[in-house]
């Protein structure tokens, strides 16, 4: 109890000292909070997208097999299916028919796909919510597409996918196989690529080798590689956003260091008086530790609360603009928090601990100097 009371006296003294120089400390608190908010937002946003990617794409095919001709992606003959199916460990092989359609009026790229077991007619389509939002010139739920041969196709929207699954389906236009071939010109007997399901996922690499041995022009892409791709894209430690942020973080610590090193005459006198009335160096250090603690804990909590509100409650408007880039079609993001104490811990150690060191060392230097010389 005595120890707690002692610390509370230190805290009282610290807060009075901070309030005496409101302008200086409030501006520092504002910049500090903003830095925590930015880094926190990046970490939470990246973590949530990475988690969603892994959770959603885990049900995708174990392997997709592309055909590469002269270094470019080419359509894969359907007779490859039988040979791949005969490889031990392969459960199913199914062709995927998909491609892109650039709609010049909207200026957006859409993904056309032939849905297996498509239950509607040849002139009917299912579209993602993003298509309805962005396709200019939708009249009476009909899309007007120009096919590969210049022929016009008028397709009726019979179903719109829920905007809640925009993250995988915003730009999808699903149709029957015959309609897809009619619009894109992909000949019968060919598919865009093959989706391979494998009994034991640990055999993926071996089966990939066997496929390449059978068909040397193919390129197997494993699901583990796809998941790693998304983990790498949204890895906050190696992301470009954090690299860019690193500059501002460094600038902040230089500012904090500069302010702490350049202790004002009033602050030096204060330390001198405290030493003269009998305070120990350790007492001064505790005082300064509390000073750093009050600023950094306040900034940390205000920043992280702001980051949570920004990313999850407001759907990250700051990053949405950056991620959108030149894209006309952008999914409605409904991110869900990934409860990861490691992230919060990492943010705490990245922002609070360095600030403590930056402010403590100059205070120690001032505290060990002779009180009489400080007060002169």
């Amino acid at each position: 109890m005595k120890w707690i009371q002692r610390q509370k006296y230190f805290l009282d003294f610290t807060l009075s000292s901070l309030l005496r120089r409101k302008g200086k400390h409030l501006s520092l608190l504002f910049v500090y909070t903003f830095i925590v908010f930015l880094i926190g937002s990046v970490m939470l946003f990246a973590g949530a997208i990475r988690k969603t990617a892994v959770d959603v794409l885990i049900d995708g095919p174990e392997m997709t097999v592309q055909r590469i001709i002269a270094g470019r992606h080419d359509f894969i003959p359907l007779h490859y299916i039988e040979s791949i199916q005969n490889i031990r460990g392969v459960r199913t092989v199914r062709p995927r028919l998909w491609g892109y359609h650039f709609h010049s009026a909207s200026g957006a790229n859409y993904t056309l796909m032939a849905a297996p077991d498509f239950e509607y007619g040849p002139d009917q389509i299912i579209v993602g919510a993003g298509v309805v939002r962005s396709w200019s010139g939708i009249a009476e739920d009909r899309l007007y597409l120009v096919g590969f041969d210049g022929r016009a196709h008028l397709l009726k929207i019979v179903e719109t996918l829920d905007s809640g699954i925009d993250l995988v389906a915003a730009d999808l236009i699903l149709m029957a196989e015959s309609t897809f071939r009619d619009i894109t010109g992909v000949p019968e007997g060919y598919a865009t690529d093959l989706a391979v399901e494998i009994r034991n996922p640990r055999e993926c690499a071996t089966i990939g080798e066997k496929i390449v041995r059978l068909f040397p022009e193919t390129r197997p892409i494993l699901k583990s590689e796809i998941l790693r791709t998304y983990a790498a894209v949204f890895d906050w430690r190696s992301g470009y956003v954090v690299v860019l942020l690193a500059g501002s973080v460094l600038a902040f610590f230089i500012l904090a260091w500069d302010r702490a090193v350049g202790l004002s005459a009033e602050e030096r006198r204060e330390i001198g008086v405290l030493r003269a009335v009998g305070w120990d160096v350790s007492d001064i250090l505790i005082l300064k530790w509390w000073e750093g603690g009050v600023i950094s804990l306040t900034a940390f909590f205000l920043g992280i609360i702001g980051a949570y509100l920004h990313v999850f409650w407001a759907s990250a408007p700051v990053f949405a603009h950056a991620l959108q880039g030149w894209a006309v079609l952008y999914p409605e993001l409904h991110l869900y928090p990934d409860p990861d104490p490691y992230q919060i811990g990492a943010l705490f150690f990245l922002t609070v601990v360095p600030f403590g060191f930056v402010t403590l060392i100059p205070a120690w230097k001032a505290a060990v100097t002779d009180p009489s010389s400080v007060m002169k």
Partner: protein
Amino acid sequence: MAFALRKSDAWLLFLGGCIILFALAANGYSVIHQKEHQQQMMNARQLVGRLGLTDLCLFTEARYTRHLSQADLHAPFQDHPLSLSHFPSGSHVGPPIHLKTVSRHEVDSTAKILP
């Protein structure tokens, strides 16, 4: 007599309030939207499984950004980290995974060595 709160108590109360607000901001969204999120995830997984989808619809600017994992090997930022991309998405996407790992090359090269 007016009740005067010590500065330390006031700040500790403020910090406690911040911690409660933090817990609410962090968990409130999950609690409120849990059912809706689970339903959406189930729908998304069903669609991914049915269509065999491989990528997230995040960057629709170009074909090599829409399907990051399926892009041509010669497309911008697929070959090396400094290759130019015309689209801003390139600045968010790091170097391709095959530059950091050797798994795909292992698959390719092993196949070429074998008869």
